[in-house]
Structure formats: structure tokens, C-alpha cells
């Protein structure tokens, strides 16, 4: 694994905008960064990333039965009691799930370590599945990347197959919050793939979702049989329409049981069951009033994009990221520094579609905490 400087494609910004990738630059900061790429060999991809991704995914699925039968665990994960049956029922009914992303620390020499699971609302999907794919084709054509280079990225193919094969409602509605162009972009990409798979995909702003007699309805009052929501379950269960989740005959994507796996509490539970596994970092639920010392990271149960994460390096340096998620319990995870390439700390997001590993997206930041402003860089595989 190495970082290779590379010429940018002329005019890539206008191309990005023409395909709906308006957030390539955000608040004047670079988000999509093609001034360099990462290069892996096939062994690194297959043995160190692909296989562990699928194994970790199975280990996570293996926890769901343990959790839904254990009130103490449901409480540790702060799942509201009102939703225990809903979550358990969605699991027993094998409610289909589309995708997830595991965040890994990896520097080219195994084993990769699991930082967390983004199993409810993972983003950077368009950047991974489409834009870096096109980047590779373009750069091979222009001779900037060696002929024969490949990419670990079957994300769009696998998503299209999932939309075609899973027992999904049709029409299928897609919702994201009104004021996020990034979330709208992610949802538009999924709608596009669903359409190619033959589904009638329809957008509705999350705030415009309606309720009539307990049934979730669209703008015209039609019942919503299936809804993909790019909005966290832990928010939905405490908002005004929480009871509609229970009364509406709606198929949810991601399904209710993903509430368990997108929770940072899954990390200590994984550690309890598979202590010492080479791809896991030691993790514990934080006890009230407990202080945490050098070599540990503190994360809220519910947090997105690095928000409210604090860490103390082994040498005692404190780093923290502010955020809006301080209102929950915390876990502690053993500190594993992200590898440094040049001036940047690098993290790997590894995708799962169904139960298969489906590719990676790379994020870089100037700090040890990866966040929503972290740059996205493409990668290649070259033996």
C-alpha cells in the first residue's frame, strides 16, 4: 500500500457537477481529491481487507440474536423499550438489508483493525461506487495509471443486483433531509441504481413524509410500502412520528435490526464475544464517572462522522472533535493510530452489500480523527 501523486483530470469539476456530484468541494475545502491515489496489491486487497470484512460482518450478524434476547444488552445499547419488539421482529422476519460500511485501520501490513460499523446510514457511496470507478477508466485511458490496474470496487454492480433480487416493495421511496446536498446526492445515486434494477424509485424529503391513520404516506396521500431513509434510526425513534414506525405497514431500509449494529455499543459486545480477534480492538462500555487515560479513544454510542470523539495518544496528547451527539452513553476503544502517508492520516471504508465485501473508499484527514470534511481519494490495485 502506497500513495502515488497523480495529475488531475482536466475539467473533472464540471464533469462532477454534470453527474450530480455537487459536494466535490465543500465550504471551499477539497472533498474529492485526485492529486494522488493509493495503490494496493491483490494480496492486500483479498487477504487483508476483503476476507476480514466478510468475517467481521458475519461476527456482527452473529450478535443480533444475542442482543434481542437480552434486556441488559438492549439497555446497554440504549434501544428504547418501546422498539424492542419491532427490532426483534424485523430480525426474525429476515427483513432485507441493503448495505453497510466498516471503517478500518490498515497500513498495508495486516491485520486491519475495525474502528466502527456504519450499518444504518453509510455515505460516500457515490464517490466510491461511481466517481472513483470513472476516475480509474479515465486515468488508464490517459496513460496516467498503468494499463492493467484494477480497483476493489464492485459496489454499483452489487447494489444493482441487490435491488433486483431482494424482496423489496415497489414503488420504493427514498428520503433524506431537505438541507443536505450530500445526503440528497447519495440518495439520488441509490435511486438511480434502483431504477436500473427495474424499481420505481421515488424521492421524498424526510420532513415531507406524512402520516394518516397510522400509515406512512407520500405527498399525494398514498401509502408508502417501502422506504429507504438516509436518516438515523436513533433519531427517528425519538421524534413525533416514532409511533408511526410501529403502526405503518412499511418496509424499512435499512431494517429495524440495523439499529443494533450501527450502534458503537456493538464494539464492546464484539470484543466480549471474540476477545483477542486479530481484526478487533479492545473495547468496553464506559462506566459512569470513569475517566479514561493514555492510549484510549472515547466514542458516543450514537455518532456520525467522528463527531464527539475524544482520544488520548499513548504519549498523552489529547485530541477531540466537537459535535452534536454528546447526549448518549459512551464506549472506550483501544487507540490504534491511523497510518500516516505524507501529512495525512488515512482510513479505509470497506463496503458490504448483502453479505459480500463490495469495495473500498479511502478518506484522509490532517488529524487522527476522520470526519465528514475528510478528503476522499481514489485507489488502484496493481500486482
Amino acid at each position: 500500500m502506497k500513495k502515488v501523486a497523480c495529475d488531475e483530470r482536466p475539467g473533472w469539476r464540471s464533469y462532477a457537477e454534470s453527474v450530480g456530484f455537487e459536494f466535490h468541494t465543500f465550504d471551499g475545502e477539497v472533498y474529492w481529491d485526485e492529486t494522488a491515489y493509493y495503490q494496493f496489491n491483490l494480496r492486500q486487497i483479498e487477504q487483508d481487507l476483503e476476507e476480514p470484512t466478510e468475517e467481521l460482518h458475519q461476527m456482527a450478524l452473529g450478535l443480533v440474536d444475542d442482543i434481542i434476547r437480552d434486556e441488559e444488552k438492549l439497555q446497554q445499547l440504549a434501544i428504547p423499550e418501546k422498539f424492542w419488539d419491532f427490532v426483534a421482529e424485523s430480525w426474525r422476519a429476515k427483513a432485507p438489508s441493503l448495505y453497510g460500511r466498516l471503517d478500518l485501520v490498515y497500513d498495508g501490513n495486516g491485520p486491519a483493525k475495525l474502528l466502527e460499523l456504519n450499518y444504518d446510514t453509510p455515505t460516500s457511496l457515490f464517490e466510491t461506487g461511481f466517481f472513483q470507478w470513472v476516475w480509474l477508466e479515465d486515468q488508464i485511458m490517459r496513460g496516467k495509471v498503468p494499463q492493467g490496474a484494477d480497483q476493489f470496487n464492485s459496489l454499483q454492480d452489487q447494489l444493482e443486483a441487490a435491488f433486483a433480487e431482494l424482496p423489496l416493495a415497489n414503488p420504493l421511496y427514498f428520503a433524506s433531509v431537505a438541507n443536505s446536498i450530500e445526503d440528497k446526492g447519495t440518495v439520488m445515486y441509490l435511486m438511480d441504481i434502483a431504477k436500473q434494477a427495474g424499481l420505481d424509485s421515488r424521492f421524498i424529503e424526510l420532513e415531507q413524509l406524512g402520516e394518516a391513520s397510522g400509515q406512512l404516506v407520500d405527498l399525494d396521500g398514498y401509502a408508502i410500502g417501502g422506504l429507504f431513509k438516509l436518516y438515523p434510526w436513533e433519531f427517528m425513534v425519538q421524534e413525533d412520528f416514532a409511533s408511526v414506525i410501529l403502526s405503518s405497514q412499511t418496509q424499512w431500509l435499512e431494517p429495524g435490526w440495523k439499529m443494533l449494529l450501527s450502534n458503537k455499543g456493538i464494539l464492546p459486545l464484539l470484543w466480549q464475544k471474540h476477545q483477542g480477534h486479530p481484526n478487533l480492538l479492545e473495547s468496553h462500555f464506559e462506566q459512569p464517572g470513569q475517566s479514561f487515560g493514555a492510549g484510549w479513544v472515547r466514542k458516543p454510542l450514537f455518532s456520525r462522522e467522528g463527531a464527539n470523539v475524544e482520544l488520548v495518544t499513548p504519549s498523552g496528547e489529547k485530541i477531540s472533535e466537537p459535535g452534536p451527539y454528546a447526549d448518549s452513553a459512551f464506549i472506550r476503544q483501544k487507540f490504534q493510530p491511523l497510518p500516516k502517508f505524507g501529512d495525512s492520516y488515512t482510513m479505509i471504508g470497506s463496503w458490504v452489500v448483502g453479505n459480500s465485501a463490495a469495495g473500498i473508499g479511502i478518506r484522509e484527514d490532517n488529524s487522527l480523527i476522520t470526519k465528514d470534511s475528510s478528503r476522499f481519494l481514489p485507489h488502484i490495485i496493481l500486482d
Partner: protein
Amino acid sequence: MKQKVLKRSKKAALVLMVPTATFLMAGCGQEEAVQTAAFETVDQCAAYFNPEQCRADLNQALTMHTQVAPKYTDKAACETDFGVGQCETPAQAAAAAGTEQPAQQAQASSGGFFMPMMMGFLAGQMLNRSGGQLKQPVQAQPLYKSRDDRSTFRTATNTPVARGVGPTYIKPSSVQPKAAGTVNRGGFGAQAAKRSSSTKSFGG
């Protein structure tokens, strides 16, 4: 020579996000009718489909019955459309189905309205050539019969879907259930509004 297996997608095409492609797609919008079926009982349904799925479809139809059935404040008006003795209150429907109403719906129905009795259900699945099941292009839902046409099953929005029990062809968009009653909006998104100053995405 061994064919190299690529680790990337064979294609990455867009149809909706590219304006010209959307234009090209516009001509292919003809919706095809799909084959599904109407039933009165789980036993009838089990002759075509997995009985467990039949029970799930019936239960879904029973739950939706109160939500989507046409509502009348006056029993006589309901009977004009659906026939004498063919209308009920939500409480009677729940008692007949042997289900407890969710508290929220019980509250909504305390105003005392009338609706037609459910006469059957549309299976939320379709038949394919091998007799197996494909994805669900239509939503399982309750069916009704009007006073002047007792042989035809109709959806809650008065779309005729089948003459009698058994397989039928329909366009999925014509049978999308529509909720009856007051629509409330804005029940999701409050947390986003509260936290929006510090984040640009609610994914992660």
C-alpha cells in the same frame, strides 16, 4: 491463459442523475401489468402461494383496512355505496379480526365513523412462470365490493382489480393504497434541525 477476474464493477452507468439520459429514458415509461391474485381466505391463497406468506398478507390487509377504507360519518351513506349490513365501525372491524387496535388508531376512531367491511385481500406477491414467488410489486391490501357489483373486488380507492377469487393482471401503480383521513406531516427531521449547525450530513 486464465481470464483475469476484475475486482471492480463491469459498468458504472447513471440513468437519472444525467439529464440527457433521463430524457432518453422517458420513452420507456410504459408500465407493465403484473400478475397477482385476490383471495377471501388464507386457504384459497395457499393453493397458489406459501401459506405463511398468505397469512402475512392477510394480516397486513386487516391492519390496513382501518387505515385506507373509505370513511363515512353516516352509516346510511356507507350502505348506499356498499350495501345494507355491509358497513362497520373500526371497533367492530378490530373485533371481527380478533386484533387489538394500536392505541393511536383507537383514538383516531373514537369519532365513530363507518367504513365498508373488508371482502378479501390482494396478495402482495406475484406469480412467475415456474409458480414461484418474485419480489413484491404490489402491496398486500384489503379489497371491497360495491353494492351494485358484488362480483368485482375493488381497492379502497375504488379501482376494480379482480372478478372473483384467483389470479389477475394489474398495473402496480393503480393499486397503491391511499390513506383515508387527515394527513400529518413533519414528524421526522426534528433531530436534524436541532443538530444541523455542526454537520452537513446525517449519514456517516
